[in-house]
Every structure is written in C-alpha cells, then in structure tokens.
C-alpha cells in the first residue's frame, strides 16, 4: 500500500466522490428512529444527512442543507419533529424533505426542485439502513450477499429479543485516516499487542493468563475477505472464555455463585446473560460499518487525517432492566474515550500517522498470510486470524471503486 492512500488530501477527495458518493453507506438502525417524526443527524462521507421516519412510518434520508441558501436545517444529534424549518429565512420542509412552505412567496415555485436533496437509494436489511447517492448501485442485499448470514447471526444473538440501539453513543476522534479504523475492525494480529493492557486487567482479576489468540497455526480462528470489500473476523473458537472473563469484571455483575434465574427474575437467564458479550465475530461492511460484540461502529471520515468513530451498544427489548444494565457496563469496559480497548487503537492509528510522515519510505506492508490463505472461489479468501487477508480484500474493492489510477 502506498503511503499516499493514507496521507494525500487528493486521494481523500477522490474517496469521498468515488466511494462514499457511489456505494452503499450505512446511515443508522431502525431502532434509532422508532416513531414517526424521529430523526438522527449523521453523514454519508462528508455529506451531512438526516435519517428520519416520516408520518407514514417510512425511513427517509435527506441532505441537511436548506435548498435556499445552504444553512443546515437540523443541529441536534437526534430528536422528534413534525419537519424541518430553516431559521435563516423560514423555509419549511417535511420529514421526507419535501418543501412545505416559503414565507412571503407569491409566485408559483417548483416544489420538487426546492425540496431537500435526497440520496436516490435507501434500502435496509434487518434494521440496518443504508443510503446511496448512486442511482445505479446494485441492490443492497447484493452488496451484502456474503455477509448476510453473519448479519443474521449478529441480529439473532439474543434469540427472539429485538435489538434496540442505545440512543447515547460513545464517540471519539483521532488524527489519522478513516481506513485505519476500517482495517482494524478485522485485524486479528493486533489484539494481543495493542490491547495487552486489557489482558493484564483480566489476568489480575482472574488470577491466570488471559489471551485471545496464540501464534500457533493450528488456531482455528479465521479471517475471511469477501467481494465488495466486506470481511469478517471469526473468533468463536478462541474467544469465548475471554469474553466470559470480561463479563465477570462488569461493575455490578451478579456474584459468581448467583442463581441467575433468581438474580434476573426470569427463567433461562443464563443464556440471556451470556449473550451480553455478543457473538465473537466482527462483521466489517465497506466502507463505514462494523458489527461486533454488542455494538454498532460507524466510521465518519472528516479529512484525510481526521476521523470520527461512533460506537453504540445494542440493548434488548423485553428483558429485565438488569440485563440491559449488564450490556451497557460490558460495552463501557472497552469502548469510548476512557475505555480499556478503543483508546489504544486510536493511539496506534495516530502513531501510524506520525510514522507515515516519512516520505523516504513509501510503502506500507500488508502481505501477511499471502502464502497460506485459501481462495475458496468467487472472491472469498479465508486465512488464519492473524493474517492481513481482510485488509487486502478491502483494498481490492477500494481500488475497483477508485479506478485503476491508484
């Protein structure tokens, strides 16, 4: 990988145009806008947009820019409203962006042309809403085809209980390129090193060595790259014990010898309690979404060297509050600016940014596992969890979207 991919502002500008404006971009989960009038402000690349639910209950995506002189029409991260009113000159718009009224207007206006701009395509799969500014983009389920079973597993990890995204989010910014976070979500190699302090905490609490993976080639954990830049890191065979250990150090966790059915006041509480870790599989959806553990991670590129990351835990409907309390505390162990995991990732992204100041050394290595990965056909490549197979897959698709120029 050439260093320009991470540091060149021209590459960043091209990415916004050729990737974020051309492919599917995740904008939110159904449960963030459950009722008519609910909205959430977000972005598609650097385009500010609003995800809304209109009066008919349909999800809509509109650009957060008054069609008149360009003022943002919505400043809050979320809320409920009957529509949007630009306070500059009083223009009003419906939840679907349709122009409602222009003050002092006596001439006939082209209402369609004066409405808020909408990305031509909005589709969702199992509650995950994506939008695209490209009218020709293939169906969302085609884009996601190979990861659909992994999304299903994520959605069904707590059985019948519907997922509800926490309205509060842990948000961070870092001074490095957005693709550092995209790569990292399916980087099994860094876990034992970048996150050594987490394993130290677990070890101190449980009194024995704690780790996810070893260097052994027999380890069954895998990474897999799919077409369209999507990928998974599957830690099911190795992580279950570590995840259980993390559950044990949750503040306010049930005592080790507690009868869980009595503690939570329901039958079959153990399965629900253990589901608080989520499935140990990270599902990376190009270019801006990761599903892993019990959280949804959105990646927001701000500039070539600045990125915002939003992490929201998933709560469950129809469970005792104590189950959701455990899920929140579990999420807080690692996530956010004061977590025991995420800050150390950001630190490494920024160290890469510092190192890439070197123009003398132009190339970043991303070759690990090239000899042993198995190409199972149709663009699916699987390998040992510590291999850089997913990242090569992400950049194959990146190059496809960017054109052969890079």
């Amino acid at each position, binding site marked *: 990988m050439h260093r320009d991919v991470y540091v060149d502002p021209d590459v960043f500008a091209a990415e916004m145009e050729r990737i974020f404006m051309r492919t599917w971009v995740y904008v939110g989960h159904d449960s963030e806008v459950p009722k008519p009038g609910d909205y959430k402000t977000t972005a598609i690349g650097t385009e500010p947009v609003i995800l809304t639910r209109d009066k008919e209950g349909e999800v809509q995506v509109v650009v957060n820019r008054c069609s008149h002189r360009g003022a943002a029409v919505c400043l809050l991260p979320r809320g409920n409203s009957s529509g949007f009113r630009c306070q500059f000159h009083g223009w009003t718009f419906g939840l679907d962006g349709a122009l409602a009224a222009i003050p002092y207007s006596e001439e006939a206006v082209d209402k369609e042309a004066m409405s808020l701009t909408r990305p031509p395509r909005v589709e969702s799969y199992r509650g995950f809403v994506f939008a695209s500014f490209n009218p020709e983009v293939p169906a969302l389920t085609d884009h996601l085809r190979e990861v659909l079973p992994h999304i299903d597993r994520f959605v069904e990890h707590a059985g019948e209980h519907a997922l509800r995204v926490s309205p509060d989010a842990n948000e961070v910014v870092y001074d490095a390129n957005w693709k550092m976070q995209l790569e990292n979500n399916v980087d099994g190699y860094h876990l034992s090193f970048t996150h050594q302090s987490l394993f130290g905490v677990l070890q101190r609490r449980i009194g024995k060595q704690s780790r996810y993976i070893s260097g052994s080639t027999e380890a069954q954990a895998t990474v897999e790259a799919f077409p369209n830049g999507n990928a998974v890191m599957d830690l099911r065979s190795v992580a279950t014990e570590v995840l259980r250990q993390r559950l044990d150090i949750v503040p*306010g966790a049930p005592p080790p010898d507690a009868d869980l059915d009595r503690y939570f006041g329901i039958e079959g509480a153990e399965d629900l309690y253990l589901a608080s870790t989520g499935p140990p599989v990270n599902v990376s959806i190009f270019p801006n979404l990761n599903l892993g553990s019990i959280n949804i991670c959105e990646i927001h590129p701000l500039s070539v060297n600045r990125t915002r990351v939003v992490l929201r835990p998933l709560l469950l409907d129809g469970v005792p509050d104590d189950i959701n309390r455990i899920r929140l505390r579990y999420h807080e162990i690692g996530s956010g*600016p004061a977590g025991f995991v995420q800050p150390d990732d950001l630190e490494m992204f920024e160290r890469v940014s510092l190192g890439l100041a070197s123009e003398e050394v132009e190339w970043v290595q991303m070759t690990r596992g090239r000899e042993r990965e198995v190409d199972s056909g149709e663009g699916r490549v699987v390998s040992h969890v510590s291999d850089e197979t997913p990242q090569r897959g992400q950049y194959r698709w990146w190059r496809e979207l960017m054109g052969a120029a890079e």
Partner: protein
Amino acid sequence: MTSSLLPEVHDLLAREAHLLDDRNYEDWLRLFTDDCLYWMPVDPLAEDGALRLNVFYDDRAKMEDRVSRLDSGTAYTEEPISLTARTFAALQVEPENGDGDRLVARSNFQLIAYRSGEQRLLGGRYTHRLIRDAGELRISEKRVTLLGSDAPQRPMTFLF
C-alpha cells in the same frame, strides 16, 4: 452548618486533586468508600447512569482495574503519560440528611492535560457525595459532568 463544613470538604477535594495530578493512585483510592461509584455520563443531563450509556461507570474494583492499567506500562494512550493539572472552584456543600454525616459537594473544574506537545483544556462540573465514617469524610460517589461528554473526544484515559 454548611459554612463550617466548607473548609473540611475543600481540603479533601484539594487533596484529591493533588493526588490525581501526582498520579498517586493508591492514596487516591483510599479516599473512596468500598461501595463507591466513579462515573461520567455521556448525556450531561442524565440523572442516573445505571441504565444509560456512560463514558465510564466504575465500581471500586473497576477503579482498581483502571489504576492497574495505567500503572502497567501497556496502556499506550498513556505511554508517554499525560501530565494533568486541575483546579476546582465555586464549591458548595449541602447536607444530604439531618445527621450531617452525608454531604453533597458541587464544584466546577478545569483540567489541563498535556501530552505530545499539546495542552488540552477539559472543563465541567464535579458532584462528590461524601460520607463521614469514623470521623473521616470519604467519597461514596464522584460524578464528572464533562462539557462535551456527548461529543467526539480524543482519548481521555487519565483520571478526572
């Protein structure tokens, strides 16, 4: 009554501030009760953090985890460490019960964190709940309401 408590509470909070800036975490932990809570809500207006998402929501065991991580040398956001200097002001102390052995102390704070050639200024409000135990005041709850806790932040792995 509250005016007579003010110097004692002020001394306790000043002591806490210096222990944190000196990174004397062992003595800092001794200021807290065994069943204490140390937390920062994401939503600055949150009244109760138990069923809300927080930036941190630590019981004593997790505070000890936090300290052990900072002391481990492998919490890389703190290698090299952040130097901190904090001030608090506008301290008010109110009793929480008639006996006067439970107090709530509200103050505003400014925390300067220095790392990698850059000073960051973080500000907000502290709410300390205090309990008198065998004559000595200890902290049963410390709430840190950071301005911008619900906005994207750079790592804040030092203690508040």
